[in-house]
Protein backbone atom coordinates (compact mmCIF):
# COMPACT_ATOMS: atom_id res chain seq x y z
CA UNK A 1 0.00 0.00 0.00
CA UNK A 2 2.87 2.34 0.82
CA UNK A 3 4.43 1.43 -2.52
CA UNK A 4 1.26 2.36 -4.40
CA UNK A 5 0.88 5.59 -2.42
CA UNK A 6 4.43 6.55 -3.26
CA UNK A 7 4.06 5.51 -6.90
CA UNK A 8 1.01 7.75 -7.29
CA UNK A 9 2.43 10.61 -5.22
CA UNK A 10 6.02 10.76 -6.43
CA UNK A 11 5.36 13.20 -9.28
CA UNK A 12 3.81 15.71 -6.90
CA UNK A 13 6.53 15.04 -4.34
CA UNK A 14 9.25 15.88 -6.85
CA UNK A 15 7.52 19.17 -7.74
CA UNK A 16 7.17 19.99 -4.04
CA UNK A 17 10.81 19.21 -3.33
CA UNK A 18 11.95 21.39 -6.22
CA UNK A 19 9.77 24.27 -5.01
CA UNK A 20 11.00 23.73 -1.46
CA UNK A 21 14.64 23.82 -2.59
CA UNK A 22 14.16 27.10 -4.46
CA UNK A 23 12.27 28.71 -1.57
CA UNK A 24 14.80 27.49 0.98
CA UNK A 25 17.60 29.10 -0.99
CA UNK A 26 15.62 32.33 -1.23
CA UNK A 27 14.66 32.40 2.46
CA UNK A 28 18.22 31.72 3.59
CA UNK A 29 19.40 34.53 1.32
CA UNK A 30 16.71 36.84 2.74
CA UNK A 31 17.64 35.87 6.31
CA UNK A 32 21.31 36.61 5.78
CA UNK A 33 20.57 39.94 4.12
CA UNK A 34 18.20 40.95 6.94
CA UNK A 35 20.81 40.10 9.55
CA UNK A 36 23.37 42.26 7.76
CA UNK A 37 20.90 45.12 7.55
CA UNK A 38 19.95 44.70 11.21
CA UNK A 39 23.58 44.87 12.23
CA UNK A 40 24.15 47.90 10.08
CA UNK A 41 21.12 49.91 11.18
CA UNK A 42 20.33 48.76 14.70
CA UNK A 43 23.49 47.58 16.39
CA UNK A 44 25.45 50.68 15.56
CA UNK A 45 26.63 53.68 17.57
CA UNK A 46 24.29 56.66 17.39
CA UNK A 47 21.55 54.91 15.41
CA UNK A 48 17.97 55.62 16.33
CA UNK A 49 15.26 52.96 16.38
CA UNK A 50 12.95 54.89 14.10
CA UNK A 51 15.68 55.40 11.51
CA UNK A 52 16.46 51.67 11.61
CA UNK A 53 12.77 50.83 11.19
CA UNK A 54 12.57 53.17 8.26
CA UNK A 55 15.61 51.64 6.60
CA UNK A 56 14.47 48.03 7.04
CA UNK A 57 10.95 48.82 5.99
CA UNK A 58 12.16 50.50 2.83
CA UNK A 59 14.50 47.65 2.03
CA UNK A 60 12.58 44.56 3.04
CA UNK A 61 8.90 45.18 3.75
CA UNK A 62 7.79 43.88 0.36
CA UNK A 63 9.97 40.78 0.46
CA UNK A 64 9.00 39.81 4.01
CA UNK A 65 5.30 40.39 3.28
CA UNK A 66 5.40 38.39 0.06
CA UNK A 67 7.24 35.52 1.74
CA UNK A 68 4.57 35.55 4.45
CA UNK A 69 1.80 35.48 1.86
CA UNK A 70 3.48 32.51 0.24
CA UNK A 71 3.33 30.60 3.49
CA UNK A 72 -0.30 31.59 3.93
CA UNK A 73 -1.12 30.31 0.47
CA UNK A 74 0.98 27.11 0.64
CA UNK A 75 -1.49 25.06 2.74
CA UNK A 76 -4.38 26.08 0.47
CA UNK A 77 -2.46 25.03 -2.63
CA UNK A 78 -1.38 21.77 -1.01
CA UNK A 79 -4.93 21.03 0.11
CA UNK A 80 -6.25 21.69 -3.39
CA UNK A 81 -3.57 19.83 -5.33
CA UNK A 82 -2.75 16.97 -2.97
CA UNK A 83 -5.85 16.58 -0.83
CA UNK A 84 -8.77 17.17 -3.17
CA UNK A 85 -7.74 14.74 -5.95
CA UNK A 86 -6.81 11.92 -3.55
CA UNK A 87 -10.26 10.32 -3.67
CA UNK A 88 -11.95 12.54 -6.27
CA UNK A 89 -9.63 11.44 -9.08
CA UNK A 90 -10.20 7.76 -8.28
CA UNK A 91 -13.94 8.36 -8.36
CA UNK A 92 -13.77 10.43 -11.52
CA UNK A 93 -11.65 7.98 -13.53
CA UNK A 94 -13.39 4.92 -12.08
CA UNK A 95 -10.13 3.46 -10.76
CA UNK A 96 -11.64 3.20 -7.28
CA UNK A 97 -13.38 0.12 -8.65
CA UNK A 98 -9.95 -1.34 -9.35
CA UNK A 99 -8.08 -0.38 -6.23
CA UNK A 100 -10.87 -0.96 -3.71
CA UNK A 101 -11.24 -4.53 -4.92
CA UNK A 102 -7.71 -5.55 -4.08
CA UNK A 103 -7.22 -7.34 -0.75
CA UNK A 104 -6.98 -4.04 1.13
CA UNK A 105 -9.97 -2.49 2.84
CA UNK A 106 -10.94 1.04 1.91
CA UNK A 107 -10.26 2.19 5.46
CA UNK A 108 -6.69 0.96 5.30
CA UNK A 109 -6.24 2.34 1.80
CA UNK A 110 -7.37 5.78 3.00
CA UNK A 111 -5.36 5.59 6.23
CA UNK A 112 -2.09 4.98 4.39
CA UNK A 113 -2.74 7.50 1.61
CA UNK A 114 -3.95 10.21 3.98
CA UNK A 115 -1.09 9.52 6.39
CA UNK A 116 1.60 9.87 3.73
CA UNK A 117 0.12 13.00 2.12
CA UNK A 118 -0.58 14.70 5.46
CA UNK A 119 2.97 13.97 6.62
CA UNK A 120 4.39 15.43 3.40
CA UNK A 121 2.13 18.50 3.59
CA UNK A 122 2.99 19.22 7.23
CA UNK A 123 6.70 18.67 6.55
CA UNK A 124 6.78 21.05 3.57
CA UNK A 125 4.69 23.76 5.23
CA UNK A 126 6.53 23.36 8.52
CA UNK A 127 9.92 23.68 6.82
CA UNK A 128 8.82 26.84 5.01
CA UNK A 129 7.26 28.37 8.11
CA UNK A 130 10.27 27.72 10.33
CA UNK A 131 12.63 29.02 7.66
CA UNK A 132 10.65 32.23 7.29
CA UNK A 133 10.36 32.59 11.06
CA UNK A 134 14.13 32.40 11.25
CA UNK A 135 14.78 34.58 8.21
CA UNK A 136 12.38 37.35 9.23
CA UNK A 137 13.18 37.34 12.95
CA UNK A 138 15.36 40.51 12.89
CA UNK A 139 12.59 42.32 11.03
CA UNK A 140 9.84 40.96 13.29
CA UNK A 141 11.83 41.84 16.42
CA UNK A 142 12.29 45.39 15.22
CA UNK A 143 8.61 45.97 14.49
CA UNK A 144 6.98 43.78 17.12
CA UNK A 145 3.88 43.20 15.02
CA UNK A 146 3.71 39.44 15.48
CA UNK A 147 -0.05 39.43 15.98
CA UNK A 148 -0.80 41.10 12.66
CA UNK A 149 -3.29 39.18 10.51
CA UNK A 150 -0.70 38.57 7.81
CA UNK A 151 2.15 37.79 10.19
CA UNK A 152 0.61 35.59 12.84
CA UNK A 153 -0.53 32.81 10.47
CA UNK A 154 2.77 32.77 8.57
CA UNK A 155 5.15 32.13 11.45
CA UNK A 156 5.99 29.34 13.89
CA UNK A 157 3.51 26.48 14.39
CA UNK A 158 0.21 27.87 13.09
CA UNK A 159 0.90 26.93 9.42
CA UNK A 160 1.34 23.27 10.41
CA UNK A 161 -2.24 23.16 11.62
CA UNK A 162 -3.42 24.83 8.40
CA UNK A 163 -1.57 22.28 6.24
CA UNK A 164 -3.02 19.34 8.16
CA UNK A 165 -6.52 20.73 7.95
CA UNK A 166 -6.27 21.75 4.28
CA UNK A 167 -5.26 18.24 3.17
CA UNK A 168 -7.90 16.46 5.25
CA UNK A 169 -10.58 18.92 4.13
CA UNK A 170 -9.52 18.52 0.51
CA UNK A 171 -9.81 14.74 0.76
CA UNK A 172 -13.26 14.93 2.36
CA UNK A 173 -14.50 17.47 -0.19
CA UNK A 174 -13.19 15.25 -2.97
CA UNK A 175 -15.12 12.31 -1.58
CA UNK A 176 -18.33 14.35 -1.56
CA UNK A 177 -17.84 16.32 -4.77
CA UNK A 178 -16.50 13.34 -6.79
CA UNK A 179 -14.98 15.71 -9.35
CA UNK A 180 -11.35 16.72 -9.11
CA UNK A 181 -11.59 20.28 -10.39
CA UNK A 182 -14.78 21.03 -8.46
CA UNK A 183 -13.24 19.59 -5.30
CA UNK A 184 -10.11 21.71 -5.78
CA UNK A 185 -12.16 24.87 -6.19
CA UNK A 186 -14.33 24.14 -3.15
CA UNK A 187 -11.25 23.31 -1.06
CA UNK A 188 -9.66 26.64 -1.96
CA UNK A 189 -12.90 28.50 -1.21
CA UNK A 190 -13.47 26.78 2.14
CA UNK A 191 -9.89 27.27 3.25
CA UNK A 192 -9.87 30.93 2.21
CA UNK A 193 -13.16 31.57 4.00
CA UNK A 194 -11.76 30.00 7.17
CA UNK A 195 -8.58 32.05 6.92
CA UNK A 196 -10.68 35.22 6.78
CA UNK A 197 -13.15 34.14 9.43
CA UNK A 198 -10.48 33.04 11.87
CA UNK A 199 -8.61 36.36 12.37
CA UNK A 200 -11.79 38.42 12.00
CA UNK A 201 -14.16 36.54 14.27
CA UNK A 202 -12.53 33.75 16.24
CA UNK A 203 -8.93 34.61 17.05
CA UNK A 204 -9.59 37.88 18.98
CA UNK A 205 -11.77 35.92 21.41
CA UNK A 206 -9.55 32.89 22.01
CA UNK A 207 -8.91 34.44 25.39
CA UNK A 208 -10.79 37.36 26.99
CA UNK A 209 -8.91 40.52 25.96
CA UNK A 210 -7.30 42.76 28.53
CA UNK A 211 -9.20 46.03 29.08
CA UNK A 212 -7.02 48.61 30.70
CA UNK A 213 -6.94 52.34 31.38
CA UNK A 214 -3.67 53.66 30.02
CA UNK A 215 -1.98 57.00 30.26
CA UNK A 216 -1.70 58.90 27.00
CA UNK A 217 1.85 59.14 25.80
CA UNK A 218 2.43 60.69 22.40
CA UNK A 219 5.12 58.19 21.35
CA UNK A 220 2.67 55.27 21.73
CA UNK A 221 0.08 56.86 19.43
CA UNK A 222 -0.08 58.04 15.87
CA UNK A 223 -1.95 61.19 16.82
CA UNK A 224 -5.17 62.62 18.21
CA UNK A 225 -8.37 63.46 16.45
CA UNK A 226 -11.74 65.06 17.00
CA UNK A 227 -14.78 62.78 16.97
CA UNK A 228 -18.15 63.76 15.52
CA UNK A 229 -19.43 64.50 19.02
CA UNK A 230 -16.58 66.96 19.52
CA UNK A 231 -14.52 64.79 21.83
CA UNK A 232 -10.82 64.35 21.49
CA UNK A 233 -9.72 60.79 20.83
CA UNK A 234 -6.43 59.01 20.52
CA UNK A 235 -5.63 57.49 17.11
CA UNK A 236 -3.62 54.36 16.40
CA UNK A 237 -2.23 53.78 19.85
CA UNK A 238 -0.38 50.59 20.59
CA UNK A 239 0.88 48.61 23.55
CA UNK A 240 4.34 47.21 22.71
CA UNK A 241 4.10 43.72 21.11
CA UNK A 242 0.41 43.43 21.89
CA UNK A 243 -2.49 42.79 19.52
CA UNK A 244 -4.65 45.92 19.69
CA UNK A 245 -8.34 45.17 19.29
CA UNK A 246 -9.35 48.85 19.35
CA UNK A 247 -7.37 51.57 17.66
CA UNK A 248 -9.10 54.69 18.90
CA UNK A 249 -10.47 55.76 22.25
CA UNK A 250 -11.91 58.91 23.76
CA UNK A 251 -9.43 60.76 25.95
CA UNK A 252 -10.37 61.66 29.50
CA UNK A 253 -8.63 64.01 31.89
CA UNK A 254 -7.41 63.26 35.41
CA UNK A 255 -10.94 63.82 36.76
CA UNK A 256 -12.41 61.31 34.31
CA UNK A 257 -14.16 63.93 32.21
CA UNK A 258 -14.21 63.72 28.39
CA UNK A 259 -11.77 66.13 26.84
CA UNK A 260 -13.07 68.68 24.36
CA UNK A 261 -11.31 70.45 21.55
CA UNK A 262 -10.91 73.65 23.57
CA UNK A 263 -9.04 71.78 26.32
CA UNK A 264 -6.28 70.69 23.95
CA UNK A 265 -6.22 73.74 21.65
CA UNK A 266 -3.89 75.62 23.91
CA UNK A 267 -1.19 72.99 23.36
CA UNK A 268 -0.99 73.64 19.64
CA UNK A 269 1.68 76.24 19.02
CA UNK A 270 3.08 74.86 15.79
CA UNK A 271 6.31 73.57 17.31
CA UNK A 272 6.01 69.78 17.33
CA UNK A 273 8.20 68.97 20.34
CA UNK A 274 6.48 71.57 22.51
CA UNK A 275 3.02 70.41 21.46
CA UNK A 276 3.57 66.77 22.36
CA UNK A 277 5.25 67.68 25.64
CA UNK A 278 2.23 69.83 26.49
CA UNK A 279 -0.21 66.99 25.63
CA UNK A 280 1.79 64.44 27.64
CA UNK A 281 1.76 66.81 30.62
CA UNK A 282 -2.05 67.01 30.59
CA UNK A 283 -2.20 63.56 32.21
CA UNK A 284 -4.82 62.25 29.78
CA UNK A 285 -5.92 58.64 29.70
CA UNK A 286 -8.10 56.26 27.71
CA UNK A 287 -9.40 52.69 27.75
CA UNK A 288 -7.44 50.19 25.69
CA UNK A 289 -8.53 46.70 24.72
CA UNK A 290 -5.83 44.28 23.60
CA UNK A 291 -4.25 40.83 23.74
CA UNK A 292 -0.92 41.24 25.50
CA UNK A 293 2.37 40.23 23.90
CA UNK A 294 3.04 37.34 26.27
CA UNK A 295 -0.01 35.52 24.96
CA UNK A 296 1.60 35.02 21.54
CA UNK A 297 2.56 31.38 22.05
CA UNK A 298 -0.73 30.54 23.74
CA UNK A 299 -2.46 31.90 20.67
CA UNK A 300 -0.16 30.04 18.29
CA UNK A 301 -0.90 26.74 20.01
CA UNK A 302 -4.60 27.47 20.36
CA UNK A 303 -4.83 28.30 16.67
CA UNK A 304 -2.97 25.13 15.66
CA UNK A 305 -5.06 23.13 18.11
CA UNK A 306 -8.31 24.38 16.62
CA UNK A 307 -7.22 23.35 13.13
CA UNK A 308 -5.96 19.97 14.35
CA UNK A 309 -9.31 19.40 16.04
CA UNK A 310 -11.21 20.41 12.88
CA UNK A 311 -8.99 18.13 10.82
CA UNK A 312 -9.69 15.27 13.23
CA UNK A 313 -13.44 15.76 12.93
CA UNK A 314 -13.32 15.94 9.14
CA UNK A 315 -11.04 12.88 8.95
CA UNK A 316 -13.43 10.94 11.17
CA UNK A 317 -16.29 11.82 8.86
CA UNK A 318 -14.26 10.79 5.80
CA UNK A 319 -13.42 7.37 7.23
CA UNK A 320 -17.01 6.81 8.29
CA UNK A 321 -18.28 7.80 4.89
CA UNK A 322 -15.81 5.78 2.80
CA UNK A 323 -16.49 2.71 4.89
CA UNK A 324 -20.23 3.07 4.48
CA UNK A 325 -19.80 2.52 0.73
CA UNK A 326 -20.72 4.97 -1.94
CA UNK A 327 -24.27 5.53 -2.95
Amino acid at each position, binding site marked *: MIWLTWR*QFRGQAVVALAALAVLTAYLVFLGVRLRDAYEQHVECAGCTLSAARQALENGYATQVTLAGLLILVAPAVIGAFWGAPLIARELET*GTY*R*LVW*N*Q*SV*TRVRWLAVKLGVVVAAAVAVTGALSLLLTWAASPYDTLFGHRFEPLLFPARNVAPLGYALFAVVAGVAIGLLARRTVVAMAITLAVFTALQILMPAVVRPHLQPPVTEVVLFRSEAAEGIGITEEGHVSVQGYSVPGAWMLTFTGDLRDAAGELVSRDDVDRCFTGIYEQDVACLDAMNLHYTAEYQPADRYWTFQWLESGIYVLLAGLVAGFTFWRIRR*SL*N
Partner: protein
Amino acid sequence: MTPVLRTAGLTKRYRRRPALTDVNLTIPSGRIAGLVGPNGAGKSTLLNLAAGLLTPTAGTIEVLGRRPGGDAGHLAAVGFVAQDTPVYSGLSVADHLRLGARLNPSWDERLAQRRLAQVGLNPAQKAGQLSGGQRAQLALALAAAKRPRLLIFDEPVAALDPLARRGFLQSLMEFVAELEISVILSSHLLGDLERVCDHLVVLAASRVQVAGDVEDLLAAHYRLVGARGDFATLPDGVQVVQAEHTARQRTLIVRDTTGTLVPAHPDAERIGLEDMVLAYLTRAGNPSAGSHTELLLEAQP
Protein backbone atom coordinates in the same frame (compact mmCIF):
# COMPACT_ATOMS: atom_id res chain seq x y z
CA MET B 1 -21.30 -25.66 -0.67
CA THR B 2 -22.15 -22.08 0.14
CA PRO B 3 -23.74 -20.34 -2.83
CA VAL B 4 -21.47 -17.71 -4.34
CA LEU B 5 -24.27 -15.17 -4.33
CA ARG B 6 -27.46 -15.08 -2.31
CA THR B 7 -29.82 -12.15 -2.05
CA ALA B 8 -33.07 -11.73 -0.17
CA GLY B 9 -35.44 -8.90 -0.97
CA LEU B 10 -32.49 -6.98 -2.36
CA THR B 11 -33.55 -3.48 -3.39
CA LYS B 12 -31.50 -0.55 -4.53
CA ARG B 13 -32.82 2.88 -5.39
CA TYR B 14 -30.91 5.91 -6.64
CA ARG B 15 -32.87 8.79 -5.20
CA ARG B 16 -36.36 7.65 -6.23
CA ARG B 17 -35.42 5.63 -9.30
CA PRO B 18 -35.41 1.89 -8.64
CA ALA B 19 -32.34 0.06 -9.96
CA LEU B 20 -33.12 -3.28 -8.35
CA THR B 21 -36.46 -4.33 -6.91
CA ASP B 22 -36.93 -7.19 -4.47
CA VAL B 23 -34.31 -9.48 -5.97
CA ASN B 24 -34.25 -13.00 -4.52
CA LEU B 25 -31.43 -14.85 -6.18
CA THR B 26 -29.17 -17.76 -5.42
CA ILE B 27 -26.25 -18.61 -7.65
CA PRO B 28 -24.73 -21.95 -6.67
CA SER B 29 -21.01 -22.52 -6.39
CA GLY B 30 -18.93 -23.76 -9.31
CA ARG B 31 -20.98 -22.11 -12.05
CA ILE B 32 -20.18 -19.68 -14.80
CA ALA B 33 -23.21 -17.54 -14.32
CA GLY B 34 -24.35 -15.10 -16.98
CA LEU B 35 -26.35 -12.03 -16.10
CA VAL B 36 -28.21 -10.83 -19.16
CA GLY B 37 -30.55 -7.92 -19.67
CA PRO B 38 -30.89 -4.67 -21.57
CA ASN B 39 -28.88 -1.61 -20.60
CA GLY B 40 -30.29 -0.05 -17.47
CA ALA B 41 -31.80 -3.30 -16.24
CA GLY B 42 -29.76 -3.20 -13.03
CA LYS B 43 -26.89 -5.55 -13.92
CA SER B 44 -24.12 -3.16 -12.90
CA THR B 45 -25.98 -2.26 -9.73
CA LEU B 46 -26.25 -5.91 -8.73
CA LEU B 47 -22.59 -6.61 -9.45
CA ASN B 48 -21.41 -3.43 -7.67
CA LEU B 49 -23.49 -4.48 -4.67
CA ALA B 50 -21.82 -7.89 -4.84
CA ALA B 51 -18.40 -6.21 -4.90
CA GLY B 52 -19.27 -4.08 -1.87
CA LEU B 53 -18.98 -0.81 -3.78
CA LEU B 54 -22.64 -0.04 -3.12
CA THR B 55 -24.86 -0.69 -0.13
CA PRO B 56 -28.43 -1.95 -0.54
CA THR B 57 -31.39 0.32 0.10
CA ALA B 58 -33.21 -2.70 1.52
CA GLY B 59 -32.75 -6.45 1.75
CA THR B 60 -29.55 -8.42 2.09
CA ILE B 61 -26.81 -9.67 -0.16
CA GLU B 62 -24.24 -12.32 0.69
CA VAL B 63 -21.23 -13.22 -1.40
CA LEU B 64 -19.55 -16.50 -0.49
CA GLY B 65 -21.77 -16.48 2.59
CA ARG B 66 -20.67 -13.09 3.90
CA ARG B 67 -21.31 -9.39 3.57
CA PRO B 68 -19.41 -8.15 0.49
CA GLY B 69 -16.14 -6.29 0.94
CA GLY B 70 -16.30 -6.33 4.74
CA ASP B 71 -12.68 -7.22 5.40
CA ALA B 72 -9.40 -7.93 3.65
CA GLY B 73 -9.95 -11.69 3.70
CA HIS B 74 -13.25 -11.39 1.91
CA LEU B 75 -11.83 -8.90 -0.58
CA ALA B 76 -9.09 -11.42 -1.36
CA ALA B 77 -11.67 -14.10 -2.12
CA VAL B 78 -13.56 -12.06 -4.72
CA GLY B 79 -12.06 -10.68 -7.91
CA PHE B 80 -14.03 -7.86 -9.51
CA VAL B 81 -13.51 -6.40 -12.95
CA ALA B 82 -15.65 -3.31 -13.27
CA GLN B 83 -17.37 -2.05 -16.38
CA ASP B 84 -15.00 -0.38 -18.88
CA THR B 85 -12.13 -2.16 -17.03
CA PRO B 86 -10.67 0.90 -15.26
CA VAL B 87 -6.88 1.06 -15.01
CA TYR B 88 -4.46 3.81 -13.96
CA SER B 89 -3.60 5.46 -17.25
CA GLY B 90 -0.35 6.89 -15.86
CA LEU B 91 0.95 3.55 -14.60
CA SER B 92 2.62 0.96 -16.80
CA VAL B 93 1.46 -2.61 -17.22
CA ALA B 94 4.32 -3.72 -14.96
CA ASP B 95 3.23 -1.15 -12.35
CA HIS B 96 -0.22 -2.70 -12.34
CA LEU B 97 1.22 -6.14 -11.68
CA ARG B 98 3.28 -4.64 -8.88
CA LEU B 99 0.14 -3.04 -7.49
CA GLY B 100 -1.53 -6.45 -7.55
CA ALA B 101 1.46 -8.10 -5.89
CA ARG B 102 1.66 -5.47 -3.13
CA LEU B 103 -2.02 -5.35 -2.39
CA ASN B 104 -2.89 -9.05 -2.49
CA PRO B 105 -1.27 -11.55 -0.12
CA SER B 106 -2.35 -14.49 -2.29
CA TRP B 107 -0.85 -13.00 -5.46
CA ASP B 108 0.26 -15.50 -8.12
CA GLU B 109 3.06 -13.74 -9.97
CA ARG B 110 3.77 -16.63 -12.34
CA LEU B 111 0.17 -16.75 -13.45
CA ALA B 112 0.11 -13.00 -14.06
CA GLN B 113 3.35 -13.03 -16.02
CA ARG B 114 2.26 -15.98 -18.11
CA ARG B 115 -1.04 -14.34 -18.96
CA LEU B 116 0.61 -11.12 -20.06
CA ALA B 117 3.05 -13.06 -22.22
CA GLN B 118 0.24 -15.08 -23.79
CA VAL B 119 -1.77 -12.03 -24.78
CA GLY B 120 1.36 -10.15 -25.80
CA LEU B 121 1.19 -7.18 -23.42
CA ASN B 122 4.36 -5.13 -23.16
CA PRO B 123 5.11 -4.58 -19.44
CA ALA B 124 6.70 -1.20 -20.09
CA GLN B 125 3.65 0.23 -21.87
CA LYS B 126 1.51 2.80 -20.09
CA ALA B 127 -1.94 1.45 -19.36
CA GLY B 128 -3.47 4.61 -20.81
CA GLN B 129 -2.15 3.67 -24.25
CA LEU B 130 -3.64 0.17 -24.30
CA SER B 131 -6.52 -0.71 -26.58
CA GLY B 132 -9.84 -1.69 -25.02
CA GLY B 133 -9.09 -5.38 -25.56
CA GLN B 134 -5.61 -5.12 -24.04
CA ARG B 135 -7.01 -3.21 -21.05
CA ALA B 136 -9.58 -5.94 -20.50
CA GLN B 137 -6.85 -8.57 -20.66
CA LEU B 138 -4.79 -6.62 -18.12
CA ALA B 139 -7.78 -6.29 -15.81
CA LEU B 140 -8.50 -10.01 -16.19
CA ALA B 141 -4.89 -10.91 -15.40
CA LEU B 142 -4.98 -8.65 -12.31
CA ALA B 143 -8.23 -10.10 -11.05
CA ALA B 144 -7.23 -13.71 -11.71
CA ALA B 145 -3.71 -13.53 -10.28
CA LYS B 146 -5.03 -12.64 -6.86
CA ARG B 147 -6.45 -16.18 -6.95
CA PRO B 148 -10.00 -15.44 -5.83
CA ARG B 149 -12.70 -18.05 -5.32
CA LEU B 150 -15.19 -15.96 -7.25
CA LEU B 151 -14.57 -13.72 -10.25
CA ILE B 152 -17.12 -11.05 -11.11
CA PHE B 153 -17.09 -9.27 -14.48
CA ASP B 154 -19.33 -6.35 -15.28
CA GLU B 155 -19.85 -6.12 -19.06
CA PRO B 156 -16.28 -7.16 -19.76
CA VAL B 157 -16.68 -7.29 -23.52
CA ALA B 158 -19.14 -4.45 -24.13
CA ALA B 159 -16.46 -2.12 -25.43
CA LEU B 160 -14.55 -4.69 -27.45
CA ASP B 161 -14.64 -5.48 -31.15
CA PRO B 162 -15.74 -9.03 -32.11
CA LEU B 163 -12.20 -10.38 -32.37
CA ALA B 164 -11.08 -8.97 -29.01
CA ARG B 165 -14.36 -10.18 -27.54
CA ARG B 166 -13.66 -13.71 -28.66
CA GLY B 167 -10.07 -13.51 -27.38
CA PHE B 168 -11.20 -12.26 -24.00
CA LEU B 169 -13.86 -14.94 -23.53
CA GLN B 170 -11.31 -17.54 -24.63
CA SER B 171 -8.89 -16.28 -21.93
CA LEU B 172 -11.66 -16.31 -19.40
CA MET B 173 -12.53 -19.92 -20.16
CA GLU B 174 -8.88 -20.92 -19.83
CA PHE B 175 -8.71 -19.32 -16.40
CA VAL B 176 -11.85 -20.94 -15.20
CA ALA B 177 -10.67 -24.37 -16.29
CA GLU B 178 -7.27 -23.82 -14.71
CA LEU B 179 -8.28 -22.22 -11.42
CA GLU B 180 -11.56 -24.01 -10.73
CA ILE B 181 -13.37 -20.90 -9.67
CA SER B 182 -16.91 -19.59 -9.87
CA VAL B 183 -17.64 -16.76 -12.25
CA ILE B 184 -20.42 -14.22 -12.61
CA LEU B 185 -20.37 -12.09 -15.74
CA SER B 186 -22.88 -9.73 -17.22
CA SER B 187 -23.66 -8.65 -20.73
CA HIS B 188 -26.48 -7.05 -22.62
CA LEU B 189 -25.74 -9.50 -25.41
CA LEU B 190 -26.92 -13.04 -24.94
CA GLY B 191 -24.55 -14.17 -27.69
CA ASP B 192 -21.57 -13.36 -25.46
CA LEU B 193 -22.91 -15.41 -22.63
CA GLU B 194 -24.52 -18.49 -24.17
CA ARG B 195 -21.20 -19.84 -25.38
CA VAL B 196 -19.59 -19.73 -21.94
CA CYS B 197 -22.30 -19.85 -19.28
CA ASP B 198 -23.91 -22.82 -17.60
CA HIS B 199 -26.17 -20.68 -15.41
CA LEU B 200 -28.29 -17.76 -16.55
CA VAL B 201 -30.03 -14.88 -14.82
CA VAL B 202 -32.33 -12.68 -16.90
CA LEU B 203 -32.67 -9.20 -15.45
CA ALA B 204 -35.06 -6.60 -16.85
CA ALA B 205 -36.81 -3.54 -15.48
CA SER B 206 -34.92 -3.85 -12.18
CA ARG B 207 -36.27 -7.36 -11.48
CA VAL B 208 -35.06 -10.91 -11.99
CA GLN B 209 -37.26 -12.44 -14.70
CA VAL B 210 -35.91 -15.96 -14.60
CA ALA B 211 -32.80 -17.69 -13.25
CA GLY B 212 -31.41 -21.18 -13.32
CA ASP B 213 -28.94 -23.62 -14.81
CA VAL B 214 -28.99 -23.35 -18.60
CA GLU B 215 -29.77 -27.05 -18.97
CA ASP B 216 -32.81 -26.78 -16.69
CA LEU B 217 -34.02 -23.63 -18.39
CA LEU B 218 -33.80 -25.23 -21.83
CA ALA B 219 -35.67 -28.28 -20.57
CA ALA B 220 -38.49 -26.21 -19.12
CA HIS B 221 -39.39 -23.78 -21.92
CA TYR B 222 -41.64 -24.64 -24.85
CA ARG B 223 -43.42 -23.00 -27.71
CA LEU B 224 -47.03 -23.88 -28.38
CA VAL B 225 -48.51 -22.95 -31.73
CA GLY B 226 -52.21 -23.41 -32.45
CA ALA B 227 -55.35 -21.85 -33.82
CA ARG B 228 -56.83 -18.83 -32.17
CA GLY B 229 -58.78 -20.02 -29.17
CA ASP B 230 -56.55 -23.02 -28.49
CA PHE B 231 -54.81 -23.54 -25.15
CA ALA B 232 -57.61 -22.01 -23.11
CA THR B 233 -56.64 -24.35 -20.30
CA LEU B 234 -53.16 -25.59 -19.61
CA PRO B 235 -52.06 -28.23 -17.10
CA ASP B 236 -51.39 -27.02 -13.54
CA GLY B 237 -47.88 -25.73 -13.02
CA VAL B 238 -47.46 -24.56 -16.58
CA GLN B 239 -46.87 -20.86 -16.70
CA VAL B 240 -47.37 -18.63 -19.74
CA VAL B 241 -44.41 -16.38 -20.28
CA GLN B 242 -45.56 -14.74 -23.47
CA ALA B 243 -48.61 -14.96 -25.70
CA GLU B 244 -48.85 -13.72 -29.29
CA HIS B 245 -51.96 -13.56 -31.41
CA THR B 246 -52.59 -13.04 -35.07
CA ALA B 247 -55.98 -13.21 -36.78
CA ARG B 248 -55.91 -16.99 -36.94
CA GLN B 249 -52.99 -18.13 -34.88
CA ARG B 250 -51.98 -18.22 -31.25
CA THR B 251 -48.37 -18.67 -30.11
CA LEU B 252 -47.42 -19.21 -26.48
CA ILE B 253 -44.07 -19.41 -24.81
CA VAL B 254 -44.55 -21.40 -21.61
CA ARG B 255 -42.49 -22.59 -18.72
CA ASP B 256 -43.12 -26.05 -17.36
CA THR B 257 -41.11 -27.36 -14.45
CA THR B 258 -43.53 -30.18 -13.60
CA GLY B 259 -43.35 -32.29 -16.77
CA THR B 260 -47.10 -32.21 -17.32
CA LEU B 261 -47.07 -30.17 -20.53
CA VAL B 262 -45.71 -32.61 -23.07
CA PRO B 263 -48.17 -35.47 -22.25
CA ALA B 264 -51.05 -32.99 -22.73
CA HIS B 265 -49.60 -31.24 -25.78
CA PRO B 266 -47.25 -33.58 -27.61
CA ASP B 267 -46.54 -31.00 -30.33
CA ALA B 268 -44.98 -28.52 -27.86
CA GLU B 269 -41.53 -27.71 -29.14
CA ARG B 270 -38.39 -26.83 -27.19
CA ILE B 271 -37.03 -23.35 -27.74
CA GLY B 272 -33.49 -21.96 -27.67
CA LEU B 273 -32.08 -19.61 -25.07
CA GLU B 274 -32.51 -16.62 -27.30
CA ASP B 275 -36.25 -17.11 -27.79
CA MET B 276 -36.63 -17.75 -24.11
CA VAL B 277 -34.77 -14.60 -23.07
CA LEU B 278 -36.70 -12.55 -25.60
CA ALA B 279 -39.97 -13.82 -24.23
CA TYR B 280 -39.01 -12.74 -20.71
CA LEU B 281 -37.79 -9.35 -21.85
CA THR B 282 -41.03 -8.78 -23.74
CA ARG B 283 -43.00 -9.84 -20.71
CA ALA B 284 -41.04 -7.39 -18.55
CA GLY B 285 -43.00 -4.83 -20.50
CA ASN B 286 -40.00 -2.82 -21.32
CA PRO B 287 -41.17 -0.08 -23.69
CA SER B 288 -38.08 -0.58 -25.82
CA ALA B 289 -38.56 -4.34 -26.18
CA GLY B 290 -38.04 -3.99 -29.90
CA SER B 291 -34.52 -2.76 -29.45
CA HIS B 292 -33.70 -5.74 -27.25
CA THR B 293 -34.54 -7.97 -30.14
CA GLU B 294 -32.10 -6.07 -32.22
CA LEU B 295 -29.37 -6.10 -29.60
CA LEU B 296 -29.76 -9.78 -28.91
CA LEU B 297 -29.71 -10.64 -32.58
CA GLU B 298 -26.68 -8.51 -33.17
CA ALA B 299 -24.64 -10.90 -31.08
CA GLN B 300 -25.37 -13.89 -33.22
CA PRO B 301 -22.31 -15.17 -35.03
